[in-house]
């Protein structure tokens, strides 16, 4: 701790930080642009100037940039000094000389950091009366709008996009006052985190294009704290709604998880909510009728009751809320409740849960991954399955730079200097995968191996770390060298971190990863000064994959048991909740089950191949339209709150399933279900703490979902009737569908959209953190449900043998693999149809041409797919991107044969057009 004096008042500060950060941490208002808590200082904008005095006697002082000055002990500064104030107003004046007067039509207006800082710096009259500099804008693709005339050249965009997120296709171009931020030619911004530009940009240069298409001012958006359901990371989001449509999703700060950034799936996938595929009304057909008939909500309720009177089985879903899964199980009974994921995933998740309870290991949160000084990524294409973790892994590489900077005594916030010093020095990132990935540019090594050989390698690594770990059966020279090098790097690290996932649906892989972690645990116990636990995490494909697995521990069976019952017709009805079963098992198996003739009730948000087979199709709420609990990859339970109420035809699955009358007790059920469940199951008792209590809160003490500037409330429904409508009531949470109540800011765990006087942009979050970049004042942590046991378990035996036969692996795409977000138009514009990719050798052996068609045949399936030939593919491997269309479970069984489909130029031409949008850096040139 150090003491500094700011305008005569003493503050305790952290001397390792700079003055700007510390002033903001103390709640002081000091304007800035180029500095960012995650990106440090570069001293470009000069907006945060303060006066610094050498000592008590020094009355003259010098102007310094707070962001470039350490908060060293005894510093005496003044923010209010006249010279400093004048300088800051001069800076803002010149930043504004070419800025257009387009706030009324600018998407940023009302949440613009530039507006706030202009006010704060005291500039309101434009003296500059010359021509402004103007620019041409670029079409940057479906996500990001570009309006360069608004640019104030703070350089934040390129620093985030290139330096932080590893993007390569955005640059500062030109010079002097013509400097331009864009691509060298128009085109899609490639990076998976491009959406953050809209939040990083202090004004309206980079904006959310999807939001612009149905724009609403920030203050007119109804918001609630939400959780991204795009994958299993559990990023916190703040969706906004107006007039019954979801308008956008922005990042909601969570210290341990997403921090300031979310991925583009999480940001732009929301529009599936208004998709044409949405199931809007209950649909029913008698017996073998081809056509669905719409039902009123009352008819739907009656029909549902009539069909579920007898012996009903229920299949839950890893993408539904925990409440809905519990409600389904309660409704059908434990003996009739089945897992909503594939059997292999079921087995994987058992192993993952075991690892989450293993002592001496820990599951790192996103920020802890960032702190790791050696990361081993196994099999999972993390950028495409849990993108936010990939961004954290990218930052972990910088820990080596941190060490160098500490040695050279360069403060870590000196961003450019630290990068310059480090050059290409990075902490080790070892990737073991069947294919090249978007992290290869920061990887110290990428080892291309098919799954069996990965498992084999991991066993060898475990053995090299701890000789007690089982030695793989068949080893050879190459493995020895490789495994001992990986082992050595992991052993040397202070905070080694293993990251894998269950995309491969291989329990053996999960076990092999756990074995390596256990070996490291043993090594550190005996040989290392580092006694802290070993980080191990598995990416989860869906928002409640782990939640469903935890629930199944208290009762429920795997999917295959349900399919067997369906096939044998031994049930009166089946409820399939929020689940496209065609993505969970092979088409053959599913067809056999359906042939059993059990009447099918499906509840879902969107139409899909599977729910067209239902007899009763009931519309379900999306994550934005219900309260819900989600358990992320760490086993962390988090609450999402209903942002807005959908039409009366759409209900949360748990509302439909609970015994309560949804018409009467709208919304209450989630809370009751959860409380009851938590009381009945010790392992879930923490869930009672998850949400602030709703009982005992009178309406006036609830927190509003609408801002105090919310406009048009009394006129919003004027086209229907002239009466002011009654406010919707929310009896299930501490939030109200209202502008009135206790400001959200009183409890940051309930805060969706931060606002503080004079701080209208997202940067106001600093007013709610305990310190800059720190925990929120009231916390927002969620509850970790998996408790570490006290006794260590032994290594798992795995029969790992090297394999050289042709195998198939499934490719995930950030834009397309997630079932829901794949229906958002902007995501669709970035999505691809199914394709296959192979390496050069295999292509040559099979006579397959780049972008040609390949015929893939296995025992159980056959498909023809366009091919991309890549450099970075493990030998004897074919990767398949099924795009929610191809029956992947049919392709994963038995021997695979490949055959080139005779070349027809039309094939090649059409697949080329598609592959032009595939961002694979290691694809071979067209003619190769």
């Amino acid at each position: 701790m150090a003491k500094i004096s700011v305008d005569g008042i003493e503050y305790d500060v952290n001397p390792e930080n700079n003055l700007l950060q510390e002033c903001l941490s103390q709640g002081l208002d000091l304007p800035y642009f180029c500095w960012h808590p995650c990106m440090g200082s570069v001293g470009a904008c000069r907006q945060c100037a303060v006066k610094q005095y050498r000592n008590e006697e020094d009355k003259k002082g010098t102007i310094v940039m707070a962001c470039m000055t350490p908060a060293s002990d005894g510093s005496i500064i003044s923010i209010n000094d006249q010279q400093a104030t004048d300088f800051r107003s001069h800076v803002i004046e010149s930043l504004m000389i070419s800025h257009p007067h387009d706030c009324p039509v600018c998407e940023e207006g009302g949440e613009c950091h530039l507006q706030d800082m202009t006010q704060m710096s005291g500039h309101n009259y434009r003296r500059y009366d010359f021509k402004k500099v103007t620019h041409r804008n670029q079409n940057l693709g479906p996500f990001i709008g570009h309006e360069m005339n608004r640019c104030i050249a703070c350089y934040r965009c390129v620093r985030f996009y290139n330096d932080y997120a590893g993007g390569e296709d955005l640059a500062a171009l030109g010079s002097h006052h013509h400097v331009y931020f864009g691509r060298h030619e128009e085109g899609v911004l490639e990076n998976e985190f491009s959406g953050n530009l809209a939040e990083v940009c202090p004004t309206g240069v980079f904006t959310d294009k999807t939001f612009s298409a149905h724009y609403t001012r920030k203050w007119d958006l109804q918001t609630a704290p939400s959780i991204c359901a795009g994958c299993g990371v559990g990023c916190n989001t703040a969706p906004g709604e107006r007039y019954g449509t979801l308008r956008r999703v922005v990042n909601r700060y969570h210290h341990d998880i997403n921090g300031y950034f979310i991925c583009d799936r999480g940001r732009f996938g929301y529009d599936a909510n208004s998709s044409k595929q949405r199931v809007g009304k209950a649909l029913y057909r008698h017996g073998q009728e081809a056509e669905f008939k719409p039902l009123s909500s009352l008819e739907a309720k009656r029909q549902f009751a009539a069909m579920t009177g007898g012996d009903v089985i229920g299949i839950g879903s890893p993408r539904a809320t925990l409440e809905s899964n519990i409600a389904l199980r309660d409704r059908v009974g434990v003996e009739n409740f089945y897992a909503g994921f594939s059997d292999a995933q079921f087995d994987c998740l058992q192993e993952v849960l075991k690892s989450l309870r293993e002592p001496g290991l820990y599951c790192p949160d996103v920020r802890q991954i960032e702190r790791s000084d050696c990361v081993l990524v196994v099999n999972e294409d993390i950028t495409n399955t849990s993108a936010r973790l990939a961004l954290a892994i990218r930052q972990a590489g910088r820990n080596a730079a941190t060490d160098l900077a500490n040695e050279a005594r360069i403060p870590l916030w000196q961003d450019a200097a630290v990068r310059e010093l480090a050059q290409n020095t990075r902490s080790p990132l070892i990737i073991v995968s069947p294919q090249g990935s978007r992290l290869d540019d920061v990887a110290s090594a990428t080892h291309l191996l098919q799954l069996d050989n990965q498992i084999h390698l991991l066993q060898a690594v475990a053995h090299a770390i701890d000789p007690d770990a089982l030695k793989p059966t068949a080893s050879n020279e190459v493995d020895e060298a490789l495994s001992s090098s990986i082992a050595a790097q992991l052993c040397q690290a202070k905070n080694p971190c293993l990251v894998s996932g269950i995309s491969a649906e291989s329990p053996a892989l999960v076990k092999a990863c756990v074995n390596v972690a256990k070996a490291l645990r043993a090594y550190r116990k005996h040989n290392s000064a580092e006694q802290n636990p070993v980080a191990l995490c598995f990416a989860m494909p869906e928002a409640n994959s782990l939640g469903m697995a935890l629930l199944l521990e208290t009762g429920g069976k795997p999917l295959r048991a349900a399919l067997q019952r369906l096939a044998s017709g031994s049930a009166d009805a089946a409820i399939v909740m929020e689940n496209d079963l065609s993505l969970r098992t092979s088409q053959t198996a599913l067809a056999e089950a359906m042939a059993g003739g059990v009447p099918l009730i499906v509840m879902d948000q969107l139409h899909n191949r599977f729910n067209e087979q239902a007899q009763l199709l009931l519309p379900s709420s999306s994550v934005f339209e219900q309260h819900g609990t989600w358990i992320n990859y760490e086993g962390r339970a988090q609450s999402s709150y209903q942002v807005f109420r959908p039409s009366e035809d759409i209900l949360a699955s748990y509302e439909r399933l609970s015994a309560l009358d949804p018409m009467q007790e709208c919304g209450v059920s989630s809370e009751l279900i959860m409380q009851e469940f938590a009381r009945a199951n010790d392992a879930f008792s923490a869930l009672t703490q998850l949400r602030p209590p709703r009982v005992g809160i009178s309406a006036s003490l609830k927190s509003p979902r609408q801002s105090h500037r919310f406009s048009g409330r009394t006129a919003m429904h004027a086209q229907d009737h002239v009466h002011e409508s009654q406010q919707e009531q929310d009896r299930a949470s501490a939030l109200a569908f209202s502008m009135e109540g206790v400001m959200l800011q009183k409890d940051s765990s309930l805060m969706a959209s931060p606002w503080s006087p004079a701080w209208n942009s997202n940067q106001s979050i600093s007013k709610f953190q305990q310190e800059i970049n720190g925990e929120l004042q009231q916390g927002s942590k969620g509850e970790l449900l998996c408790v570490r046991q006290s006794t260590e378990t032994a290594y798992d035996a795995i029969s790992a043998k090297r394999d050289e036969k042709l195998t198939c692996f499934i490719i995930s795409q950030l834009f397309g693999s997630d079932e829901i977000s794949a229906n958002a138009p902007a995501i669709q514009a970035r999505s691809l149809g199914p394709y296959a990719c192979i390496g050069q050798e295999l292509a040559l052996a099979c006579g397959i041409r780049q972008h040609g068609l390949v015929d893939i045949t296995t025992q159980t399936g056959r498909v023809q797919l366009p091919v991309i030939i890549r450099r970075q593919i493990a030998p004897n491997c074919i990767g398949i991107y099924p795009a929610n269309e191809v029956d992947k479970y049919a392709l994963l069984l038995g021997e695979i044969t490949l055959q080139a489909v005779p070349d027809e130029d039309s094939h090649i031409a059409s697949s080329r057009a598609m592959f032009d949008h595939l961002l694979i850096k290691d694809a071979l040139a067209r003619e190769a």
Partner: protein
Amino acid sequence: MTDTPLTKNIDMKREPFDFGLYRHAGGYDGVLRMLKEMAPADVLETVKNSGLKGRGGAGFPTGLKWSFVPTGENAPKTKYLVVNADEMEPGTFKDRLLMEGDPHLLIEGMLIAAYTIQANTAYIFLRGEYLRAETLLRTAIGQAKEQGLLGKNIQGSGFDLEIILHTSAGRYICGEETALLNALEGKRANPRAKPPFPQVSGLWGKPTIVNNVETLCNLPGIIRYGTQWYKDLGKGEDAGTKLFGVSGRVKHPGCWELPLGTPIRELVDGLAGGMSDGYQLRAFLPGGGSTDFLLPEHLDLTLDYDVIGKAGSRLATGTMIILDDHTCPVGMVGNLMRFFSHESCGWCTPCRDGLPWVDSIFRRLESGQGQESDLQILTEHLEYLGPGRTFCALAPGAMAPLGSALKHFRDDFEAHIRTGACPWQK
């Protein structure tokens, strides 16, 4: 011994000395002795004691600058010497003379500097337009290499040095040493924050010394003849000689080597032959475009860093630009403002957005459309773009001629506004 160590070999009417002639004239004697007899620390001590100050413009003591480079066993193995040969300061034409007139002198100076900091690679960052200098330097480097004065284990000393010539593509900001390093790394030439100084983390994050051409050309003499000789060369407070130039309406514009401490009058009225017929001296910039105007009353000052500093300007590059009574001072300063505005790298706000505003005001003043309030805005910019306010010294440099012009030529500015035209435009 000589009293013009920088230019003794230079005669622009003939080709510069090749290796043989340079050697014959005593060139490389100092270096050879240094490699045999002196440890790097000895050379550092000698240079420190000589009182040599950087000739690039800032006038920082060279030995002191070098002493910040980490030495010893724990110091990084890779270090760099970089020659700032990106001469682009308006009105400055001294480094060109040295490189075109005696390229081996620079190479010898580089050997001394590189040896002192134990750098094994040296880059010459040469301005892209200096085509003749490029050719001559390439030849000279080749000759030095052939003669075993560059390369591995030079003259059996165990010291290696490669010199690599890098030619730039035109940006004034590259003269700023950290911007130069970024340019050399192939990046946009924005300056870097200091600290960390290049001596600690410079080119590719390695300890680096950036020295101006003329600075390095002083070293062979110092090593050969010693510090006392060098100090004695100076007539006043500062040691050594320096190149001084005069451009503008004088009878014989040119560049000469003179002892520091020489009265300005000797340069302007003596060597440059005084004002051209029909022209009167109104003022002059003593050291390139980034210095404050001095007036005829300052002609008797001596050419010393401190003396010129006390008079309110800077000696800087030592190349004077003469403002005569037929040239509009507003036009002249406007020309400088346009230059600085265009050459801003675009990194920090005051420089990037402030200078174009200043430039626009000058265009308006020159066209006779200026307003009283324009002068107020210009005055405000003096502080707004002053030292410590901007990221590097470019904008404060631009403010030097502007501030002094507003002080000395206020009437001229006002005349433009009052009469609605430039009084010099007939």
